[in-house]
């Protein structure tokens, strides 16, 4: 694999700083008044990253502007990741546990969301396959007929069928991955993140242990490997986002904090066409703005906006905002006007207005605090 680009250049950073400085000269108030107030429900998973004792919760907040009122604190076993059904009032939680009903496996639960209050009611919990322990991510297929779960510590993917009402059934396809190396020098597979391509049954997965991005075709009873694209040594791909057009995949690497841009040739992942290295290798999360024009990275002490070139998919840093804490998760509100950020160490949840015209943030406002928060989602009212 060839590195087409090195780390963020001094020029890129200066450019970003210049944009940010210019922004301070603009009349933010005029922009702020044009946007509707934030309204809806926020779901925050807590305890999923330190799951040994299986404790955890999902906190539900009713959000009105910058006021976050707790409406429910539901005790949940180690929720590491949340997914919303795109059409139904249904929330999925991935339980990062090593035992479920005494067997070595994780589990996934589905919760009904009360449309008016946001209250969650457990509908069903579906155990994963044997040895699928500590799952930490899942993705819904575009047709919402399957949920693909990545069990990181087990090195296993499970494909769960979804009933028309969204309820997950037992896994119908299981894929056990192996790692790298022989004898004493070994790395086992650690599938960390999965994302479906908008076209349908193709899923891309990031494996921090295998140091690769895999392409699978997911059908009812099989998860078939199509291709494996190796990342650069020490990268450890940990999060994937595909561009809104589906023509690129962005890979965040836990190992060195870099971000790689992979063009898609059909559904095949090409070698990275661009790699943005991080000066501080703890870039933890990224999020795509709903317009598809910006990729936000959080970590390394900064919240950075990367503009996406609509033709090539390449990334250019356009702004950066200092951020003292280490983010455990970020998510845009569906309208793209706010970025919700949860902090790993303090549990603070902040809400930062985002101005899509310029790709920059207002200063974030702390709106709530949830200890050990690890995943956040927002559902509009």
């Amino acid at each position, binding site marked *: 694999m060839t590195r087409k680009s090195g780390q963020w250049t001094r020029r890129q950073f200066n450019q970003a700083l210049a944009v940010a400085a210019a922004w301070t000269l603009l009349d933010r108030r005029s922009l702020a008044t044009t946007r509707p107030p934030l309204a809806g429900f926020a779901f925050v998973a807590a305890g999923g990253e330190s799951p040994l004792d299986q404790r955890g919760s999902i906190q539900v907040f009713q959000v009105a502007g910058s006021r976050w009122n707790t409406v429910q604190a539901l005790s949940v076993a180690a929720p590491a990741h949340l997914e919303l059904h795109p059409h139904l009032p249904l929330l999925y939680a991935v339980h990062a546990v090593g035992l479920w009903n005494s067997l070595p496996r994780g589990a996934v639960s589905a919760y009904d969301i009360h449309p008016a209050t946001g209250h969650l009611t457990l509908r069903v919990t579906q155990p994963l*396959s044997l040895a699928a322990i500590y799952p930490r991510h899942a993705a819904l297929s575009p047709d919402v007929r399957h949920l693909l779960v990545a069990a990181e510590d087990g090195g296993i993917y499970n494909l769960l069928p979804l009933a028309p009402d969204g309820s997950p059934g037992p896994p119908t396809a*299981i894929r056990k991955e*192996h790692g790298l190396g022989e004898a004493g020098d070994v790395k086992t597979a650690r599938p960390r993140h999965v994302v479906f391509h908008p076209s349908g049954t193709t899923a891309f997965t990031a494996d921090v242990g295998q140091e690769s991005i895999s392409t699978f075709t997911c059908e009812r009873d099989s998860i078939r490997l199509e291709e494996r694209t190796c990342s650069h040594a020490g990268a450890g791909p940990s999060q994937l986002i595909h561009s809104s057009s589906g023509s690129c995949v962005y890979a965040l690497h836990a190992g060195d904090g870099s971000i790689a841009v992979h063009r898609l040739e059909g559904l095949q992942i090409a070698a990275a066409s661009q790699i943005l290295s991080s000066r501080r290798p703890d870039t933890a999360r990224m999020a795509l703005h709903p317009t598809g024009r910006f990729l936000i990275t959080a970590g390394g002490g900064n919240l950075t906006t990367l503009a996406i070139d609509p033709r090539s998919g390449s990334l250019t840093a356009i702004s950066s905002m200092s951020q003292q804490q280490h983010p455990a998760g970020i998510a845009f509100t569906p309208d793209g006007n706010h970025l919700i950020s949860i902090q790993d160490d303090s549990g603070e949840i902040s809400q930062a207005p985002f101005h899509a015209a310029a790709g920059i943030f207002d200063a974030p406002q702390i709106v709530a605090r949830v200890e050990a928060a690890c995943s956040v989602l927002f559902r509009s009212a």
Partner: protein
Amino acid sequence: MISTVDKQDPRYPVMRRGKNARFPHADSDAVSRIEVCESVADVTEVLQHTVSAGLRPTVRSGGHCYEDFVVNNPNGVLIDVSLLDHTTAAAGGKSGYQIGPGAVLGVVYTELYRKYNVTVPGGTCYSVAAGGHLSGGGYGLLTRLHGLSVDWITGFDILTVEANGKVIRRHVDRQHEPDLFRALRGSGGGNYGVITNFYFDRLPTAPQTLSTAGVSFPWETMTEEKFVHIVQTYGTYFEGRGQEPDTWPMFTFMGLTHKGPNGRIYISASWHDLDGKNDLSVPNEFLDLFLKCGDASAVDEALLTSHQIPTGRPPEPSPCIAGKHRYTTGPWLDATVGGNGGAGANGTTRGKYKSCYMKKNFTPDELHRIYAQLTRDIPGMNPGGIIAVDSYGGAVNKAHLADETAMPQRASIMKLQYQMYWQNPAEDEARLKYFDELYTDIYSANVDASHAGTPFHNEYYEGCYINYPDADMIRYPFWPELYYGQKGLYPFLQKVKKKYDPNNIFHHGMAIRT
């Protein structure tokens, strides 16, 4: 040659299951195909293909696994090694013997006897194959005399999977991968790889004859007092006299059945004649003890093991006479592999099993609970089932073998196997509940509160036998200690597992967990 049996194959319904008809629980739990292998090369090819395809392999030698460890493998691949069934002299002019994992014990006994006049101190169910039997310890009629099967194993050939997914062949023994060698000597099947050969540098000489006699007591006239007397008489013997070396050629069995019409408590003694004299004074001495317990009857054809409990008309009883028990004596091989040998019902009978190693005689409180459970009426159900109390100890209890093998139980005098069989799937829930309650109650008598419900290691018990796996036990966080003891064996096995199966390719509900 590899024969693939997929879901379209007419053999699939039969070959997707083992002997216990409870498994797989549902069609969705079943394997996608069975790969029947004839050679080590076949197994290597199938295993490599399975791992490379991201599928889970499970391995079957004889299909006797008591739980769902092999056939519960949703859409996975069942590697059938039953045709690796050789029993021969060691290859390459080496001394000793080698046995394939698919060789069933009845054939192993026969081949070793006919070719070499030796035997393995193996099991009592003759359709059990070596692969499962030897991986989990292996004990039977000759165990008090010669120790466990794994005590005699001197090497293994095994296929393991490297971290990068590559299948490699290993030969392990005391000099080569000694950690894996120890782990393979009793920690149970389905943990580290696929064993393709067991090696024995030497084996004990086969006995000449086997003589079996027994006594029985009818449930119709049973009282709790008499029940306690009978069972404690049995236990008292093995606490004392039964551990003296001159008694080790004797295997005994006590079958504690649930009360019922024509039901009886059975006790048998089997004597292995090693020198042609067939001196039966030891089994006579043992059986005579029970003549003081009430209305003991002789049994025309005494039961050798729990697998021979009659299901139809019981054997005709007749009075017992002290010192003159009605022995059935035959050539050792005929007696050992004769009859149905506990062949099982080949997938038509449902079963549930539990176990316990006992270091001491039964206590009054324990027996009170056993009696209450065996006389308990279960509405709409004849519980059936049996608590089989086998003689134990003797040559097994050489303490140093606990450190050389993966069988830590080296201080017990009796070994109990709880068995229940039925046919109707609709009875599953009620039967499993009853059986669990029975066991939980019995093992709440002599056990501290934090381990109540299990025969956890204490002055009375030494845990459970991994070859009689009981999935009910995994609800206890300490279940590995039940099976592997408290002296560091399980952490050792976890290290071995991580080293030789870093991807956890081989796993099941009670596999070594890393």
